[in-house]
């Protein structure tokens, strides 16, 4: 039995108090922290002691001379927060509409048996739409997982001269990851025979990284899956291409381009 296990289970007053002080100071390794955290959730007295220590220690932090972060750090943080809200469907203007599906389900459950049968027939007819919602949900979950990646960075891609004045694009990725999330707003919806295409540039060479469309409000997003870590690419850009995408970008239809390092 380890020293900590002995101290925590069964509790031995002083030893547990020592470990809580060390926990407050971040002087425990990950395994020890996890054990103490389990104990803290079940022991209000231990939790109170920890809170007292954290109040004391916070004074050390508060006494630090402030250092103004670079403005871009705040922009990146809030772009990440906005992208997460976007992925979770927090914005009614941009989000898929699961509440409609919920409403239909509630109608089916609440209706009389005859109406329920009719509603079920309708639901079967809408099966394909249901699958589409499931796919949207899976995509949203994938986006949320991507946004949780440690070391996630947010790069704003400046509008190109040929792009719409309102165009905004952000690319979120962790350098070691091979996937990323592109979010755009202010783009013009395209005709059916055209598509937006995203490019990752490595040493100046563009590589196709997916096509996407935007909704009527000009918002869109794309989960990007690369063949190698995103950190190996230096730039990214968006162009307008024929439907289905192109092997090389049409530079006269450049929307946005910028550094992702």
């Amino acid at each position, binding site marked *: 039995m380890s020293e900590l296990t002995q101290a925590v289970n069964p509790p031995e007053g002083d030893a547990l108090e020592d470990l809580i002080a060390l926990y407050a100071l971040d002087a425990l390794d990950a395994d020890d922290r996890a054990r103490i955290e389990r104990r803290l959730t079940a022991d209000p007295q231990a939790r109170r002691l920890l809170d007292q220590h954290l109040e004391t220690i916070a004074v050390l*932090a*508060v*006494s630090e001379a402030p250092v103004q972060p670079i403005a871009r750090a705040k922009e990146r943080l809030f772009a990440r927060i906005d992208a997460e809200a976007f992925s979770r469907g927090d914005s009614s203007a941009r989000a898929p509409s699961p509440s409609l599906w919920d409403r239909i389900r509630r109608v089916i459950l609440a209706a009389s048996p005859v109406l329920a049968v009719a509603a079920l027939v309708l639901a079967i007819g809408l099966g394909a739409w249901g699958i589409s919602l499931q796919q949207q949900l899976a995509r949203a979950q994938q986006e949320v997982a991507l946004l949780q990646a440690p070391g996630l960075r947010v790069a704003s891609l400046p509008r190109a001269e040929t792009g719409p004045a309102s165009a905004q694009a952000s690319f979120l990725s962790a350098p070691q990851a091979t996937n990323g999330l592109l979010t755009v707003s202010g783009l013009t919806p395209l005709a059916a025979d055209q598509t937006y295409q995203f490019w990752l540039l490595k040493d100046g060479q563009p590589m196709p990284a997916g096509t996407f469309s935007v909704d009527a409000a000009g918002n869109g997003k794309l989960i990007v899956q690369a063949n190698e870590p995103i950190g190996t690419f230096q730039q990214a850009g968006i162009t307008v291409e024929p439907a289905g995408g192109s092997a090389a970008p049409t530079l006269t239809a450049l929307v946005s381009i910028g550094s992702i390092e």
Partner: protein
Amino acid sequence: MQQTSSAPLLTPSDADLAARMVARDRAAFEQIYDRYSGKALGLIIRILNDRGVSEEVLQEAFWRVWQRAETFDANRASFASWLFSIVHHCAIDELRKQRSRTAPTVEVDAPDGEALAIPDPNIDVAESAWANLQGDQVKRALAQLPEAQRAVIMLAYYGGYTRQEIAARLNEPIGTVHTRARLGLLKLRDLLSNLQS
């Protein structure tokens, strides 16, 4: 203390902002960021001694604050202590990752102004952190702690060392480190409250 500014009357309290943050109010979180990011970055730089990496850690720390907003309980602790515990943990995490990649180093200024990294396993982290402390009140309180207790707190809080590493550095039994950490924090709390009153 006499209040010389009328601005605080219009400034939302930490408790107000925290409650709104828990309700996913982005604007409130932005105010929290504006209020605390400077102090937080100061602390992270103190621990990591690298401005660029510290900016990244700051972003990660505030992301975690936003993600874990619902775990804040105003009945248990002040918002600042909750926030800084997350910030500190992020900084220490990064420091330990760096340590696992490289041997301990100390930076000195080269004649051309560039920093050189020279391995120095005997660098006295505790004394270095102590010498650079900013807050007068905090410094006075820490000055009154027994040196052995102060060293444990400095090595843990600013040096990012685990209890085992502290015991090895100080060449003391681990039980001694445990006791010094606990007694040091209790005494520091008393000293700070005496100074504040």
